């Protein structure tokens, strides 16, 4: 399986994701420049955290106009797994692959800590290795992670089982404690917490491992069909 890690100017979790794929599931992975227009040969797309374009204007707003975006949208239509973490989640909402928006944390401060997340949907290609309702320990690090969507959208994503992770307790003011959502088709996941920082006990938690294992396993199942 071959992963693309998209690198925008200002991305800063790109290398962490690269190592995550390489070291945890030993899959192929390449860093892809935001000016590229082809992702031929790649099976999955990872959009890393960071401050693309310095978060100027609005987080993710300028990255949404980079050349690679069109290609990412095509990959989404093709049903390839696309995972946006932190700034990656913000970009996915900016380009309309996921509903809602990420606003400034209600406390108006950046927050970095390892938090409890509840797995709300373990039937996705990103979470199949987790148990439903499992509590996992994953770090967050964001200033704009306060997820918002209107009531109609909230009902819709609830009804469609699109809420994949919730914070076990309110950390930033997100609607319904939402930490991660998936698109209706089930191949685009955006989340604020950083599973790539939770792959080894020595750095505090390895609860993120199952996410990368899920993606790999789902891929293998598809290939072997």
């Amino acid at each position: 399986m071959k992963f693309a890690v998209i690198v925008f100017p200002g991305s800063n979790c790109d290398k962490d994701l690269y190592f995550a794929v390489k070291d945890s599931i030993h899959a192929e992975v390449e860093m892809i420049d935001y000016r590229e227009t082809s992702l031929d040969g790649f099976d999955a797309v990872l959009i890393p955290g960071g401050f693309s374009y310095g978060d100027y204007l609005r987080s993710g707003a300028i990255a949404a106009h980079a050349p690679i975006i069109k290609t990412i949208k095509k990959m989404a239509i093709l049903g390839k797994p696309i995972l946006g973490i932190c700034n990656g989640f913000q970009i996915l909402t900016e380009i309309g692959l996921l509903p809602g928006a990420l606003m400034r944390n209600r406390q108006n401060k950046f927050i970095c800590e390892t938090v409890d997340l509840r797995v709300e949907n373990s039937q996705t290609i990103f979470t199949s290795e987790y148990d439903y309702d499992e509590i996992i320990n994953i770090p967050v690090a964001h200033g704009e992670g306060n997820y918002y969507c209107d009531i109609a959208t909230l009902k819709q994503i609830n009804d469609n089982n699109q809420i994949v992770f919730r914070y076990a307790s309110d950390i930033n003011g997100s609607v319904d404690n939402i930490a991660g959502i998936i698109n209706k088709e089930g191949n685009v996941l955006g989340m604020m917490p950083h599973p790539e920082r939770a792959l080894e006990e020595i750095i505090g938690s390895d609860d993120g491992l199952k996410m990368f294992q899920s993606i790999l396993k789902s891929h293998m199942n598809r290939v072997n069909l």
Partner: protein
Amino acid sequence: MTEPTAEMIQETKLYRSWGLSDQEFQTIANDILDRLPNYTETGLFSVMWSEHCSYKNSKNVLRKFSNKSERVLAGPGEDAGIIDIGDNQAIVFKAESHNHPSAVEPYQGAATGVGGIIRDIFSMGATPIALLNSLKFGDLDDAHTKYLAEEIVSGIGGYGNCIGIPTVGGEIAFQARYKKNPIVNAMCVGLIDHDDVKYGKATGKDNLIVYVGAKTGRDGIHGATFASDEFTDSNNTQRSAVQVGDPFMEKLLMDACIELVHEHSDWIMGIQDMGAAGLVSSTAEMASKAGSGLILELDNVPQRETEMTPYEIMLSESQERMVLCIKPKYRQEIIDFFTDKMLDAVVIGKVTMDGKYKIYQQGKVVCDIPISGLVDDAPEYKHVGIKPDRITDSKEQFKPEIESLEDTWLKILGQPTISSKEYFYKTYDSQIKANTVVKPGSDASVVRVRDTKKAIAMTNDGNSRMVYVDPFIGGQMAVVEAASNLVASGAIPIGITDCLNYGNPEKPEIFWEFEKSVSGMAMASRRLNIPVVSGNVSLYNEFNEIAIYPSPMIGMTGLIEDIDNVVTQGFKDSGDLIYLIGETRNEFNGSEIQQLQMHDVKGSLNKINMDQVESRFNLILKIITNKLINSCHDLSEGGLSVALSEAAFENKLGFQCEVNMPTEYLFSETPARFVVSVSKDNQKEFEDLIGNNGAKIGFVTDDNRMNIKTIDTEATIELDEAISIWKGAISCLMKKN
């Protein structure tokens, strides 16, 4: 505006307002130039000869430090010191103060302090792996102090979080003397392979000088001079001397420079960041190190504003700029390389062999002075110190009064300097890069070196109360305390960087504090074989003539050879035995409890037995490498009562202890002591090893209580109550109107 002529400068003594003395001006005119300097030249001399750039008041004292050990690859004089960690790898680290800018424009002042120290690291070719900071504020009882604390912390986070380097640790203390003059020291640690080290040199005739990064604006002009002056009520709003930071730009610049050094090392001769005194300091120092000369064409310098004068261009401290010295044949390659990274790179000059610093604007020579005059001939002042009246030789110790141990214990845990700093450090991304093994809030922070078994431990320390009551021993204590932090995590201390924050050195009492405390630090670091490889001096930290406490900050790094040996401070298992290593003495001068009960600190400190300290460090490292202990915490402010509490808080485990000492000794601050916990299985082997260097004082419990018995009383505190006081103290003060 037309600039004053050389004669007018001499006549009106304009140079005085830029920090040059009459004597210094005469030296420049008579001995160095043999003519009067023009406006631009006067400006260049005034910044290059400021304390901030020339260390003219402190050089003589700084020579006391030893910068040698078998591990040192480069010491002071470079952007940062370099220390070998084996396997062809090294760490590069330095700390820098940004006190003055942070006092007037706290967010940007602190942010650009972080940006500046990061540039010092990647300009050597190293990849930054961690940031730390040491902050000292006034008491959290007035709105302005809270504003400074809030903004400074968010400036530090704003820069570090965006550029993507974890802020893993540091220290924060509070004391009234820092009210209008906060201390903001930032440290950066980088990792490098030996062969990748680059130095800031402009060598080789006709090699080109290339400017990379942000455009030059009018911000930060005379920042270095400003940093070498005191604050008063009427002189505290020099906001124009503060720079504005752009971490996004620096991220581009950092990644590009590191890639350039790794992939195209042969293109470049030298690389240097533009920090204090901007273009003049960086280029002149590059030429000075190489013994060369330079020609600069100011018309080529990218400018953000129109009609900038040579003076403004040369002195601007606009951020996120670098200078390279390159081989001419790679000119186009280098420009293309940076253009691809969205960065401007422009040739602004070339290397000559005549030792001259020649600057042109619109075809006219605007500066023609010898490099050596600018860099090497800065005056050096030997001040004479006078012992301040408060310093006493009396051996008398403060006697704490403890009516209720419970009350005093809880009160100490709620003191801002003791209590949890989570309110602040939670806003720093401490985990990015996924290498942080021990996070903020511990004795030392630990970052692993990916693809090896190694880890680097680091800490920032400096208890200025101790330095205030007794500069020499307080200075020794700062080194011992930092080393204790590293040793407690299982690391061998390998190097020091410092920030020396003091008042006006022209005052004999201040100079005495400076000299004595540096002597103390130098003595301790030599004795423990921990070289001082880089550092920074910040003087003139005064407001309305009242100086801050003498506040040296020790930034220390340590090496952990095997990451499996990392030890943390929290108790791990109920039933584990608790030992106190090191003797507790009647020592309360300069302590937290003295501050709490007297609202002041005074008295002298007892001599430190450095032989004993050294052997104790070796003992702790041995019991750690023999895997005999489950936790280790060093004792510092607040003494045993606080150390036991903090060990209990981490994993919410209680303890039951009995000590053979008077109650007040629970708050003694005798240095180089440790609390360790040991599983019963290891008891015998552990006790054989420590001999009479420590004593069993109790065991870890899981009943949510902290219980302690002394020879004259007994106290029990609910763990939850203690945690809520300790954790909530700062956020409570910050939110109170």
